[in-house]
Every structure is written in structure tokens, then in C-alpha cells.
């Protein structure tokens, strides 16, 4: 099996070859695989340029196809990262170069600035004050959810209704094409279709907004891992965060839901009818379709013998966690709706 970017012995020379041809001669001082992301391969690269300067970069590409756990598009990610350099309100590490020829590393890959710092998840696990974290966290979430579609090179739906049709249709499509029947997915898709909330303007959606994808640097937070970004309903990121943080605590919404939602509304200008515990529950379920689709695709391919590996098999655990969250969210929302109806 071709190891691609995972081949730590061969990659330094290949990288030096590409840099010499496209940027400038450099020596790779070290090349090490990074942890923290399940879906992409990331390597920390320490370089010494021929000029004598040292630089540390992150090389981000796809795993070998048979080990892939989630699918996403490097072309789209590169285009978005390039555009985000001009969106001042969203700090993100600079994407410097794009290797769009798969023949060298076995994958398209992006060279990104390495930023010093741990994840916000790590800071939280180490005891970061959650009450004081809500304000900057909602600021970052609102900053993403306030970017109008024309500012980033992502396809924009024709309307909010069309977008919702598409998202709910994706749930149904997962059930239609999966080798094993998925009554859970059909149940959720049916429920989503019957409980659509009030619309809001379409905006940038990160697609995996959670504390593990915020790097706490000496100069402030930076948002990373934009592979699932899209134009959509900004409440998708809010709901995704709720689903993620319920599985990977701490959860800022559990700490102070009213404070969190008040701050989010104030920073986005969205109303209480648009952002409340009920709509949060709805988007907690809806927003995970991108991840869920890929998780099921991986398992389905494994069942057919086309993929293998611990990461793919582990999707079976993640799907069970997701189902648990979905049922809780649906039950909570139905109870809230019943209470509202008296």
C-alpha cells in the first residue's frame, strides 16, 4: 500500500524537491505526523531555507484512499483558505502554497503556517474558566456566521428553503445509498423535514466548529480545519458545536446556555425567535450531515472490502455517539414544542 504523506522516511526528500522547483531551495530538518485530526493527514515540517532562515509549516493532505475516514475537497479548501486571508475578523493560519499534483505525495496538499499553541480543548481540559470563555468563543462563532456568501469562493444556494431541501435531502440520500438499511437516518430526515425553523440569511459555515479546531496562540485564537466549510444557515455551526461538545466536554452551552445564546444573538443580530433552545436542538441534529455522510460512506466501503484500518472501523463508534445525541436532541425539542403549545 502506498503510504503517501505517512511515509516519514521518503517525504522530506519529496518535499525538498517540490519546494526547490516551486518556491526556493530548502532542507527539511524534521517531518513528523501530527495528531488531533481524524480525517486528514497533517505533518509538522521544520525547514531551513537556503537563505539560512528557519520556518515551520504544516503539510495537510489526504490519507491513502483505503485508510480515508472522511471525504473532502482540497481544491475547495485551498481556495477558501486563500480567501480567508482577506477576512480580517477570522484569524486563521496563512495557507502559503498548494501542491495540486497528486503524483509526488500521493495526495494534493496544502502548506500552511504552523502556529505555536495548543488547542482550546486542551486549555479547557487544563481548567480554563468556562464562564470567561463564552464571550470570545461566541465572538469567533459569530464572526464566521456573519461572513456574507460573496466574500468567499464557495457555492451559494439559491435560497434558505433550497438549502434546507438540499441538507435534508442529503440525509435521505445517505439512507438510500447505504448498503445496510439505516432506519435511524430515515427517522431523523423525516423529523427534520417536519420541524423546519424560521429562516435566517445564508452565511459562511465552518462545518466543524469546536474547541479542538481553535488554536490558542500567544497572539490570540485562530480557527483551523476548514475542510467542511460551506455557505449555509449559520445556526448549523451553533448546532454542530452543541452536538460535538455534548460528546467531547466541556460544553459551554451546558455551562450557561442563556448566556451563550444571548451573546451569540447580540453578536450576529439574529432574533430570539431565530436562535433559542428549540432551534439549537434542531440544528444540533441537522448540522452533522456532512460528517455523518462520510462516516457511513467509510463503513459501507469497509463492509464491501474497499477500505480498512482502525480509523474507518472507529466510525462505528462515532455513529453510535451521534445517534445518541440525535435522540436526546429530538426528545428535548419535542418536549419544548409540546410545552410551548400548552
Amino acid at each position, binding site marked *: 500500500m502506498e503510504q503517501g504523506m505517512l511515509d516519514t522516511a521518503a517525504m522530506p526528500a519529496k518535499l525538498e524537491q517540490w519546494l526547490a522547483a516551486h518556491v526556493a531551495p530548502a532542507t527539511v530538518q524534521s517531518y513528523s505526523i501530527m495528531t488531533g485530526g481524524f480525517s486528514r493527514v497533517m505533518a509538522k515540517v521544520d525547514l531551513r531555507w537556503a537563505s539560512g532562515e528557519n520556518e515551520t509549516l504544516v503539510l495537510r493532505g489526504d490519507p491513502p484512499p483505503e485508510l480515508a475516514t472522511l471525504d473532502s475537497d482540497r481544491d475547495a479548501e485551498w481556495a477558501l483558505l486563500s480567501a480567508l486571508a482577506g477576512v480580517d475578523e477570522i484569524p486563521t493560519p496563512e495557507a502559503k502554497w498548494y501542491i495540486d499534483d497528486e503524483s509526488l505525495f500521493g495526495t494534493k496538499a496544502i502548506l500552511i503556517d504552523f502556529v505555536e499553541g495548543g488547542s482550546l480543548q486542551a486549555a479547557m481540559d487544563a481548567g480554563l474558566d468556562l464562564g470567561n470563555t463564552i464571550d470570545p468563543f461566541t465572538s469567533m462563532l459569530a464572526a464566521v456566521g456573519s461572513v456574507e456568501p460573496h466574500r468567499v469562493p464557495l457555492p451559494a444556494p439559491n435560497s434558505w428553503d433550497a438549502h434546507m431541501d438540499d441538507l435534508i435531502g442529503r440525509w435521505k440520500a445517505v439512507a438510500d445509498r447505504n448498503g445496510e438499511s439505516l*432506519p435511524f437516518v430515515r427517522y431523523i430526515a423525516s423529523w427534520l423535514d417536519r420541524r423546519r425553523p424560521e429562516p435566517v440569511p445564508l452565511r459562511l459555515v465552518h462545518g466543524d466548529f469546536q474547541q479542538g479546531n481553535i488554536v490558542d496562540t500567544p497572539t490570540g485564537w485562530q480557527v483551523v480545519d476548514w475542510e467542511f466549510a460551506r455557505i449555509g444557515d449559520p445556526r448549523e455551526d451553533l448546532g454542530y458545536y452543541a452536538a460535538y461538545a455534548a460528546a467531547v466536554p466541556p460544553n459551554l452551552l451546558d455551562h450557561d446556555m442563556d448566556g451563550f445564546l444571548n451573546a451569540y444573538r447580540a453578536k450576529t443580530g439574529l432574533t430570539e425567535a431565530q436562535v433559542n433552545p428549540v432551534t439549537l436542538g434542531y440544528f444540533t441534529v441537522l448540522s452533522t450531515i456532512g460528517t455523518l455522510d462520510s462516516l457511513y460512506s467509510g463503513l459501507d466501503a469497509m463492509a464491501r472490502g474497499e477500505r480498512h484500518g482502525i*480509523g474507518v472501523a472507529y466510525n462505528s463508534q462515532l455513529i453510535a*455517539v451521534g445517534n445518541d445525541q440525535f435522540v436526546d436532541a429530538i426528545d428535548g425539542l419535542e418536549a419544548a414544542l409540546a410545552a410551548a403549545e400548552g
Partner: protein
Amino acid sequence: MQAQPTTDQILNDLAREVREELIPVIEDPALKVNLEMMEQLLTAAAVRSAHEIAWMAAEVDAMLAYANDVADTLNDAATSEALAAFAADSSDSLHLQDQVQNYSLAGEAFGRALEAAGDHDRLGPAGAQLIRQRRDTEREIRPGFYFPGRS
């Protein structure tokens, strides 16, 4: 065949070995994450090996009963079609692959029935209750779950 120790005992012991003997001495963070995933998967596989045929058989009965109720009450064509597929292709064999096939066929009938039931006064809540039972079974398959390597 040697039936004891049982498959779940063997898998649980492998999981213990990974957890207690391998993970603590591994320094490579990427390999450590893989071993943490492996330990969880071995534990899950142990639970499944002990119970999954019985669990699936019980769920099949419940799902078919519900789907038949929906088909009769709402005259839903998609549910009836899926029930016919189960009748044609299901098997009495206890081999895992055959039980998995039965489970999938019944699951399709159940899924179509859930779509048809929607907000129906009786069938909606009844379907939701079966979904909760399925969730409860899935919980049993992931004891001690945590996300490896996310901090």
C-alpha cells in the same frame, strides 16, 4: 471447537492488554491514538460477539411488527414493498451474515414505516420508542467511550 474462553472473554482480554500493557509505553502520539481506538473497538466487538445475534433477532421482530402496523393502518406502499422484500429474502440461518441480512431488511421496512408514520398520533410515538430502544442497545456497545487524542 474450543468454546471457552468465549469470544467476548478473549476480545476483552485483548482490549485489557492494549489498555494496560501497550498504551502506557507507547510514546508516538499517532500510534497511541490508534491503540486507544483499537482498545475501544475490541471492547465493542466483545459486547457484540456476546449478544448481537440475539439483539438483532429481537429487534427484527419488533421492527416487523411496527412496519406491519404502519402498512395496515396507513396503506403505505414503500413500507409494504420493504416488508415483501423481507419475506422474500430473509433466512432462518443463525450464521451472522444471514442475521445481518435479516436485520437490514427489517430495518428498511422499519425506516420506511417511520417516514410514513410522521406525526401520526399513535404510530409516531410508537416508532420513536423503538428508535430509543435501538439507541439503548447502541449504548451497550460502547462502554467507556471517549474521543482518543482530541486534546
